[in-house]
């Protein structure tokens, strides 16, 4: 044991103090497994019978996840629902131990996983601040010291000695947030809490988190709000089905997530629910060449071919189409009657085909088409096919985002220089592919 050997104090090991020579977070080959029981044995007889044979499947919420976060980094963890984001945060917060691999955090960790966790309705605001602070690991002296600041931040001064059960839910969340951000940790874990409270409070919360980040503290955010992610973080880790699919600069990560992951929505449901008057028999999306289109370049000319069949006598009806991104963002909607076109009159059994032609000014991603038939005024819906067709727009050089605005850039004043072949887009696909090949 030489004199210059770095030593870790017990406080550091217990997570109370920070050791600046080590990274803030180390996650090494972590796998977390959940056991999903198919059917919980209930009765005594059944329980005895199945004592040793409860049927279950093991489900890996995280699989072989490794990354290191240095002090002062602000990292976003993004991914679709069920990709393991929250599990990862729980591992970092020590709520769950890893089933395999190692998770190390260096310094005091605070998590905003749930605001006002442990609030007790029968206790007053004052008592709940103390209790909640203690749950989050503050000492009595620290709570006393920050008490006024918390009250001030939450704006609950006049209700301090009232039982929390009489608070509005918004107020309760505010109080919870106020206590949580006063913990002043070395590592802050935040899970989707930006969306609480009113606009003013949200702004204050973001400000508080920015201040925290600017103090050089380590910050890890789980969110679906990609704008907030881009605003708050420098680095993004994209998770998909429990695996890290991307780890790098936040703009690339967000873009990748937008294109690859967020837009891949739930399994297709193109069943038609309870058609009345008119049924939609078939919806085909065709490209300029007249063939069914599934993958197209940006700004391709497309046509949605919708074949209807009347179930009764119909005087006139309107056919509608909605294009949305895989995550549900509503992009475009059109009903034929908006353009003064109706379908009809139709005899029972008579068929009709409507073709809606459009240019998909969209950038890389996955999109879905929904069709509906309504009466002419659009008040009554007769038939809906929610997920009638899907198409993907291929990544292409140029711009990034959602809409293809076909922008061009020119240096109008000052020296300009060609930097490449124009094929280097903002899209980290090549990097992703390389990464996957390596893995």
């Amino acid at each position: 044991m030489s004199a210059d050997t770095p030593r870790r104090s017990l406080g550091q090991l217990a997570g109370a103090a920070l050791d600046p020579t080590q990274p803030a977070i180390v996650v090494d080959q972590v796998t977390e497994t959940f056991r999903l029981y198919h059917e919980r044995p209930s009765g005594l007889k059944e329980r005895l019978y199945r004592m040793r044979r409860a049927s279950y499947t093991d489900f890996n919420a995280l699989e072989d996840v490794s990354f290191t976060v240095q002090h002062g980094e602000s990292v976003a963890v993004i991914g679709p629902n069920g990709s393991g984001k929250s599990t990862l945060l729980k591992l970092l917060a020590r709520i769950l131990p890893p089933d395999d691999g190692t998770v190390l955090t260096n310094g005091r960790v605070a998590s905003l996983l749930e605001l006002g966790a442990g609030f007790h309705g029968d206790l007053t605001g004052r008592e709940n601040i103390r209790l909640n602070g203690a749950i989050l690991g503050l000492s009595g002296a620290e709570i006393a010291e920050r008490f006024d600041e918390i009250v001030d931040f939450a704006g609950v001064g006049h209700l301090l000695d009232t039982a929390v059960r009489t608070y509005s839910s918004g107020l309760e969340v505010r109080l919870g947030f106020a206590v949580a951000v006063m913990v002043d940790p070395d590592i802050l874990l935040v899970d989707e809490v930006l969306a609480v409270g009113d606009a003013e409070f949200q702004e204050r919360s973001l400000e508080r988190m920015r201040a925290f980040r600017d103090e050089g503290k380590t910050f890890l955010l789980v969110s679906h709000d990609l704008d907030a992610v881009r605003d708050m973080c420098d680095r993004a880790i994209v998770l998909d089905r429990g695996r890290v699919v991307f780890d790098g600069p936040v703009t690339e990560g967000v873009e990748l997530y937008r294109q690859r992951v967020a837009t891949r929505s739930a399994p297709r449901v193109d069943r038609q629910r309870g058609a009345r008057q008119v049924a939609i028999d078939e919806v085909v999306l065709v490209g300029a060449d007249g063939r069914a289109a599934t993958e197209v370049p940006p700004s391709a000319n497309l046509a949605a071919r919708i074949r209807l069949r009347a179930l009764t006598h119909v005087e006139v009806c309107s056919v509608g189409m909605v294009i949305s991104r895989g995550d549900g963002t509503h992009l475009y909607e059109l009903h034929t009657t908006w353009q003064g076109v109706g379908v009809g009159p139709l005899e029972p059994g008579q068929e009709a085909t409507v073709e809606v032609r459009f240019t998909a000014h969209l950038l890389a991603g996955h999109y879905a088409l929904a069709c509906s038939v309504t009466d002419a005024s659009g008040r009554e819906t007769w038939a809906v096919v929610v997920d009638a067709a899907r198409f993907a727009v291929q990544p292409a050089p140029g711009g990034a985002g959602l809409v293809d605005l076909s922008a061009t850039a020119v240096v109008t004043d000052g020296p300009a220089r060609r930097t490449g072949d124009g094929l280097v887009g903002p899209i980290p696909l090549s990097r992703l592919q390389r990464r996957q090949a390596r893995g």
Partner: protein
Amino acid sequence: MVVEAPGGGEVTSQPGGIDAALVPSGPRRIALAVSIKLVELWRARELLVQLVRKELKVRYRNSALGFLWSMLTPVLMTAVFSVVFTQIVRIPVDDFPAFFISGYLVWQFLQNSCQGAIHSIVGNGELIKKVYFPREVLPLSHVFAQLIHLLLALLVLSPYLVYTRGLDVLVHLPTTLLAIALLTVFVSGIAMWFAGVNVIFRDLQELFVVIFQVWFYATPVIYPLALVTAQIDERFAWVATVIAINPATVFVELARLGLYGSVSATGDVVAPLTDGPPAWPNLVATGVATGWALLAFVLGYLVFLRRSRTFAKEV
């Protein structure tokens, strides 16, 4: 205490930059784990204090008589048992109410702590899934809340005990305090065991009432231990053994020695028992109580810690 980082001693570095000092081996590992746990518990003391305050406040709040209401059960039980066991079935001890309540308060401490603790993990599922803190503070908060309650109850009842048993009760206060201290350690272990095991075996809370009913009658609360050994039929000698082995017996007897006094058999048929004033405990009894307390605490805590790793998945 410090531990070496990679590069020193037997520690080897691992892939991924893992600090290998965190996984030493052998006794050092145990010593390290225990020390980390102690630091963690020390840091969680504020939480324990707040949780105990919460327990007591929620329990005594919303009623003007607050604490006095919670005295109703032991007082009522004492009244009922006194009538039954002095007028109907005779248990030949002097000052039966004092005899009974000195044992019953101790018993209540055990039972109520476990009753609170058994739901403490399952009932706080949301909290456990969202925030990390040493889980043991949840069952322990019930134990300490009940401890404070026990001390208050003794304070309220002390005039009565002094009136019936003499000033010796006060003189031998250390006996009572020693008994309560050891009992607290014992109860902590049992409470943590119930809290931890109930998470995977929920039937335990259904069995709880039965377990404690049987345990109550197997503990000399209503009757003196001396009476069992003196009067039990040969064929039921095993019952006397069970009662004597029962750890709760040790604590009830020890606490009663300080609060009521000793009860011993005379061998006489007409007056089989004789009682003495509060006294100092003998070394054997203290040793046995200490042994049970430590055993229950260590086993209960180990089971709890083992279980607590997966609480967040199971609650």
